[in-house]
């Protein structure tokens, strides 16, 4: 691209046009190159860590660097003349504005993933609660793996009782911690984040829960159908009793007819009856 621009510049020069050609200042060019490299690195990081989601843990450094690079572009002022600073020539001088688009894309992704939620306030590294959660998560995974290895010989799907029994404690702790984090997050909702936790934590929890209740079938709530049916049919039975008893025992409300004071009420009745026929 650089060569092309130079070619173009030379062509224009040949055509006798003035010298201030659309060529970037060297400082600006280096800024742009840094941004391009940074975004390539971030893209690679995001792609590699898409499944299972580890975006926030792995890519926050890249993201922070990219932010800094973009910031230096917007702040940079070229030294040649006021009308040709880097920000203007890189960010706003064409229709496509690819640098802005890229930067917006990364910002939006970061926002949607809600990574700020599990990073420290200055975005350097994971927050303590997140560390704790991930630690617990790893422990549960290890526990699952450990217990599954023991019974890998018989592969009947319903036979996961061992896992359920042994890992119940870790799983419950993990689940409780997650719920706690969620509640904390909702209370501190005014800090600007939405009610979501960051995507890493959410995804980790989802995987564990799916394993636990779908694959291992560990969460079997005790169903007490009989008492529920008994209580509900009792309550549903009450209105029938009520309506029947009020129908049988309550005195029906009677209305007292008032005779209208009219002449020839017969005549008008006849009138009406005529219309009936």
């Amino acid at each position, binding site marked *: 691209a650089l060569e092309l621009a130079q070619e173009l510049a030379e062509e224009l020069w040949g055509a006798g046009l003035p010298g201030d050609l659309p060529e970037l200042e060297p400082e600006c060019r280096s800024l742009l190159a840094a941004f391009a490299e940074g975004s390539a690195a971030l893209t690679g990081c995001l792609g590699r860590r898409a499944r299972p989601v580890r975006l926030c843990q792995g890519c926050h450094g890249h993201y922070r660097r990219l932010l800094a690079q973009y910031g230096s572009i917007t702040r940079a002022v070229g030294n040649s003349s006021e009308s040709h600073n880097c920000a203007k020539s890189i960010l706003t001088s064409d229709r496509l504005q690819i640098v802005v688009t890229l930067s917006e894309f990364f910002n939006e992704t970061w926002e949607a993933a809600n990574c700020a939620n599990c990073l420290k306030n200055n975005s350097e590294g994971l927050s303590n609660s997140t560390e704790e959660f991930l630690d617990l998560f790893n422990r549960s995974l290890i526990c699952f793996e450990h217990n599954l290895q023991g019974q890998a010989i018989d592969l009947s799907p319903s036979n996961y009782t061992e896992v359920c029994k042994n890992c119940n404690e870790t799983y419950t702790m993990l689940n409780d911690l997650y719920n706690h984090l969620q509640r904390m997050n909702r209370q501190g909702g005014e800090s600007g984040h939405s009610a979501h936790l960051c995507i890493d934590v959410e995804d980790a929890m989802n995987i564990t829960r*799916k394993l636990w209740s779908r694959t291992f079938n560990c969460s079997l709530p005790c169903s007490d159908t009989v008492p529920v049916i008994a209580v509900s049919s009792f309550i549903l039975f009450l209105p029938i009793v009520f309506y029947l008893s009020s129908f049988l025992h*309550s005195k029906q409300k009677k209305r007292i007819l008032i005779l209208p004071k009219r*002449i020839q009420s017969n005549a008008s009745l006849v009138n009406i009856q005529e219309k009936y026929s």
Partner: protein
Amino acid sequence: MANVAKKVSWSGRDRDDDEDGRAGETTPLLNGTGPGAAGSARQLTPSSFLRIGQLSNVDLNEDIHELETELPRQRPNEIPHNEKLLSLKYESLDYDNSENQLFLEEERRINHAAFRTVEIKRWVICAMIGILTGLVACFIDIVVENLAGLKYRVVKDNIDKFTAKGGLSFSLLLWATLNASVVMVGSVIVAFIEPVAAGSGIPQIKCYLNGVKIPHVVRLKTLVIKVCGVILSVVGGLAVGKEGPMIHSGSVIAAGISQGRSTSLKRDFKIFEYFRRDTEKRDFVSAGAAAGVSAAFGAPVGGVLFSLEEGASFWNQFLTWRIFFASMISTFTLNSVLSVYHGNAWDLSSPGLINFGRFDSEKMEYTIQEIPIFIFMGVVGGILGALFNALNYWLTMFRIRYIHRPCLQVVEAMLVAAVTATVGFVMIYYSRDCQPIQGSSVAYPLQLFCADGEYNSMATAFFNTPEKSVVNLFHDPPGSYNPMTLGMFTLVYFFLACWTYGLTVSAGVFIPSLLIGAAWGRLFGISLSYLTKGSIWADPGKYALMGAAAQLGGIVRMTLSLTVIMMEATGNVTYGFPIMLVLMTAKIVGDYFVEGLYDMHIQLQSVPFLHWEAPVTSHSLTAREVMSTPVTCLRRIERVGTVVDILSDTSSNHNGFPVVESNPDTTQVAGLRGLILRSQLIVLLKHKVFVERANLNLVQRRLKLKDFRDAYPRFPPIQSIHVSQDERECMIDLSEFMNPSPYTVPQEASLPRVFKLFRALGLRHLVVVDNRNEVVGMVTRKDLARYRLGKEGLEELSLAQT
């Protein structure tokens, strides 16, 4: 020969008859049983006209007595309540100004500038109505949100706890008991303190705007009970909404502010005294109703059109503009206060109590080929609405006949609340429809038997306030509900809502209707996309909206205002056309079976409601056959004793009395001179405006219009006014206070003509005179309202004491 002016008592009847040569002929005529009456129905000789005029001045009490002794049915006739009755409890409002001398004097005194201040005051009042209605709506919304949130959290924690350990029947009991006890409080205050606050209040306001005075309907006490009752019944988990009652609340606020005082609190702020009469009050009440609609749905134009639709016979352009102003202020107040409450001030994102959410995304757009489908949905909505109304009709009839004691009503409401909770619980319990939790879109995700990280999707419909459920049905992404869940929900909720409407709690039917419709509409949309192999245009949210409109239209049968309300609530003008088509179809189909829910309830309450026009086949009826006769007349200068006797006569609770010329001794025919109201007479008696006292200079000052206004609207009963024996012999001069130019019609006027005059001018009394200007009869609201077009033709309703 006796004349109209002569006041004849039963004891003096013989003499009267002696003087009159045709005594034998006339008595049966009065009763309507004699051959003369039936025979001479059409061709009355002048003498019999005269005779009627004569009888009109026979003391009424005696007259009824005579009637009863002569008729075979001597005992009061008792029948079970049915829909073909008119209750005596309801009276008309005086929309026609009494243009007596006092009024004319006052109007003459007010100059141009003063009229301008009156006009400014009107605007100020409208602004205050808007602001206060908006604030009341905010209050309801915030309290409901917090209390319901508390309740659902308690129940959810309980269910979560017992799901793990077992013993879910306790959670069921807890939920049912919580609901029942909250509803009990709500029902007790309504049943024992102010029964008129029951229901949505829209029928009552409709009646008020129609010109019927429903006792207590616009009192402050009613407002307080209404607001508390709505909060409690929504928190109690009944299948109800808080939108309908806002209309009633707005009306009460309007009536209260425009009077500048509260009789309940015994406070008079001495402002807005000019507006203390029915005409002005009605204008403000229509503004209040509009403000209520606007606050409920965030639909200011819909509110104006609602008032227009319900009270349009008394309408003018300036009033419309003022009402629009009140509406706008109301929704803006609600919006700004709720925005501040939700923490994003200046955002203005909650214009109504219910927000349908945004309907402007691309997949929500409709195409032309969908319109026949929408119309079909309208048909379904009409049929379901008619079914709803028919079921509710039977239920209401049963309630009026058998469940009329307040304690029974409270027990019924509690039972409904408990059953609603139970049914919801059972549905959730047996539902196997689990959906993954996505962020915080579900307010109270109930896991129950679902896998960890999932929630029971039946619970989003039942375990939530109905408003939220409606919005969820509109906006949840496709696939959030499986068809089985929706089908069961529609079925159950339909019967619950039908059972709930008409309980002695204050609650509206808008939201339950929308919810039923949204549920089956969504189901319809889902099945459509199955049929078309998942075409993109079949977004279930759009069909949920159309279903909601169809169902609501099928139940309440409002047309213009409902279209605009729905359009404004969705915030999408392009939906106007399909919504209009859907509502039209629903109304046409529904009207084929039964009438709308509100009209049905008005009829069941035996309210003398005047429809737009007289029944179509009533042209052959004339004023003669419609009017009540004989009429209790007063002479221009009347003995106080007679006035007191007439007023305290319990059997004839008349409110307007024609005033006739007062020369007792002449045999000349005396014509109609004016009309005086009971309220005016009572004020006169209270201030003892007697001729003798005036002559003795005992009267301190002349009575002014202010004295009548101060007594408005609760005039003391006649029993509270003491008139001594001496004073009974005094005379009272009515000529200054009566309305000297009452509206009259000749006897030959047809019923539609009388009806038109009565309805268009909002009259309360219409005097029927003969060609000599003698009073022959009186047409009141009940005389006109009793003719109704039934299934087989014209029917006549009977009057009853209720």
